[in-house]
């Protein structure tokens, strides 16, 4: 085991880990941040999606040493002092959630998109979440929610 330090949700964590551990394992097992989910460990489901320096990445594919020195954001870091981020609000408002297992990853993929592109088209949204599988919703409401949150983030009037 080696000592690591990692910046997650703007907080520094110090912990011991084995060099072959993935970021997903560290988040869930060492830091107790279980919002990132494990659905495949092969990079195919997107349930483990986190933001690394603002980019949506699959935490199951990242070795812990490669995460060191970068800014990591997980779903736990999205709602500042208990206030929901507009994407989170829109997911609730649009009913973009069923079992919820894909939800943290979906929301973070959406955030990575909207941080770069505040006015995405529907097909850009679909493309941005194409690495996040959802078995429950048929994606319809998820796309709707991301469109709505882009409006909210642009400051347009939405009664959410």
């Amino acid at each position, binding site marked *: 085991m080696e000592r690591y330090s990692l910046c997650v949700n703007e907080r520094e964590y110090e912990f011991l880990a084995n060099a072959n551990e993935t970021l997903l394992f560290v988040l869930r097992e060492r830091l107790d941040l279980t919002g990132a989910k494990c659905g495949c460990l092969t990079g195919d489901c997107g349930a483990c999606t986190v933001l690394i320096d603002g980019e949506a990445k699959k935490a199951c594919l990242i070795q812990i040493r490669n995460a060191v020195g970068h800014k990591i954001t997980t779903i736990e870091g999205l709602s500042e002092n208990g206030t929901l981020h507009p994407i989170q609000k829109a*997911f609730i408002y649009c009913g973009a959630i069923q079992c*919820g297992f894909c939800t943290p990853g979906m929301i973070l993929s959406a955030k990575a998109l909207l941080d770069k592109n505040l006015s995405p088209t529907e097909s850009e949204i679909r493309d941005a979440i194409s690495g996040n*599988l959802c078995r429950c919703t048929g*994606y*319809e409401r998820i796309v709707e929610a991301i469109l709505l949150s882009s409006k909210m983030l642009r400051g347009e009037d939405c009664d959410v």
Partner: protein
Amino acid sequence: MALYGQKQFHIVNHSVPREDGFDKVTGRATYAADIKYPNMIYAAMLRLVGVASAKVTKIDTSKALKLAGVLAVFTADSFPKMKSWARYFYITDTVRYVGDVIAIIAAETYAIAEEAKKLIHVTYEELPAVFDIREAMKEGAHPVHEEYPDNIFTDSIYTLRKGDTEKGFEQADLIIERTYETQYAEHAYIEPEAVVASEDSSNGEMTIHASAQNPFFTRRYVADILQIPLNRVHIIQETLGGSFGGKEEGVGLLAARAAFVCHVLHRPVKMVYTREESILESSKRHPFLLTYRAGVKKDGRIVAWEATQIGNSGAYNNQTQFLNWRACAHCAGAYDIPNIKSKTFGVFTNNVHSGAFRGYSSPQLLFAQEQFIEEIAEELGMEPLKLRLINCLRDGSTVATGAKVSEVLLPDIIEYTAKQTDYTKKYEQNKTQSGRIRKGIGMAISHRGCGYGAESPDAAGAFLIVNEDASVLLHSGIAENGQGLKTVYCQIAAEALGVPYENIRFFGTDTHRIPDCGMTVASRGTVMGSQAVKKAGEKLNLILREHACTLGFFDSGKGGAPNDRIAQDLVLREGHIFDPSYHEYQVPLADVTNIALWKGLNMAAYEWHVPDPCIQEHDTQQGRAFPTYSYTCVVAELEVDTGTGEVTLKNVHSSHDVGTAINPALIKGQIYGGIVMGWGYASMEEVVLKNGIVGSRNLDEYLIPTAMDMPNMKVSIFECDDNSGTYGAKSVGEPAIECVAAAIANALYNATGRRIRCNPAGLENVLIGRKLW
């Protein structure tokens, strides 16, 4: 015509937001794999992944046991066998399919347990095996289970006789027969199965946190393996990351294994499937071999129908018999046919076992039946829409089980959907296309028996507690599986009890708090399971009005009324009690409950609901199989690249009679999800098995639709006055998927002139009409 929007309710029939939304968007919702205990250990399972039928002769665990951190290795000799009721093995030395577990390793960490697996040396003899149902039924085929020498799962045989098919076929002007086949499909819920077991050594109570679709079902496995009473097994259902019928037996087995390891080693144990294990060991959608024969008059009336429906049960089964009962009742589609004869049965093979999967046989049957109808129409030279309308169920029709149906919106739904999609015009136009890219439009219709029906008593209970602040706790044994059941139950309780939706809390299903209410399956949760919630709500509504009177809130003079009022004069609605004749005087419920508590008055109600029995004659399956039916019509439009075989699904219009839409937003969510899942089933999903070996082992090989694959979706919700279900609700979770693959197959034929009689329609199947492997 009864599109949603004409009923009068206060809380049900409206789209209230999900009660679990906040927890799920913030990552706070706890799934079973998120649970941790101090001092917890891990257990991993060993399988003979490359062999489907074998006798294990020796397992050398000595090296594994020497690895630091390994605590124990269990094999069939050191692990209990299932004693009570199911036909499964926690660990076995006779491998009947690739998912069978032959050893379990307990270790300090998951990584050590996995490492130890590699150090175990297994000696085995390979045994003969059968994989295909046709092979399995041949004389001299290897019997998968000694008790079933010809591999036919006798408990799952159902025969149906309605009218006289011989006479029917004699009257027919045309007789036509076709055979269809469907594939193994995987639930592919995004959350793999997980359990955590912990034992309280002071009283022997075993607590299991589980990703269980049916906590009471899981409880039986744990009580079985430990041979302890059910009241010492505490199953807590954690937030479930999708199930669709899949987290039943598999999770029971997993929970029992974890419980036993925990009991022996005196440490909390976590067991989580990898995706590969989930695909290997979890049950699958039954493949079916389906042959239909119909006798038709020139005018389009179907006068005789014969069906042979054979399911591939795989290596073990506890569900084929129930599933086949449903398949038998639905053997003739949504049509009123006077003479029907059918046989349905399951066959054991050395493949992965089949179980419940959203639809419970209907997507398979409809894939065949709804194509068959179009093949009949073609032979008759008639438009398929017309043939459907001539034969489909309507008021006064009799279904295959001989029971009469009423309040049938099916003909309206078909006509409405056809009109909305311009079906007839497009259907005709598409037939004359040329060029590489071809368009296709296809339809499928269905009727679906709601709830358990005659399969087993559709009974359930509910317990409501009102606290002194007028907040309410709801307990039910029917479980949230991600579909939004808690939200719907809170709406129903709020409507019946007369309090705001926000006042009700249903925090989860826990086997220590409510009796076993049966399984959350068969789309029965809203239709039947919630009847008890409504009943308990209504009972408590009356009790609280009585308290208001007893406590003097409606004595003469109060609110300006000259006389004392009794409970029957009052209304409790939206958290206020009032006399409608003097409605300005509204007593907040909390004023009443606050005093009632200190006066020692009861503020809780428990109700159990058993619907009128459904009874059928066993040998002919004639009788009332279900209290009522849901009706569906789906139209799919697609484009085929005839050069590559690539199919793009463009539009899907899905219309449903849901009786009463308890929560229209949730219903639409179910339907969108069903369409996309059905699209996967129709086009890309297949658990590829070669000699029983699973070829598609993770989500890179078992492909499910992504956001890039979704079509434009339109949903139409119809309501009717059938009051069999709670507030008139009918099933929707399974109707949402069942017609989709059939409509797509019909659209493909419309586009290419090639029938896909073998699902799914992968590239080569579309191009040349058969699969290449």
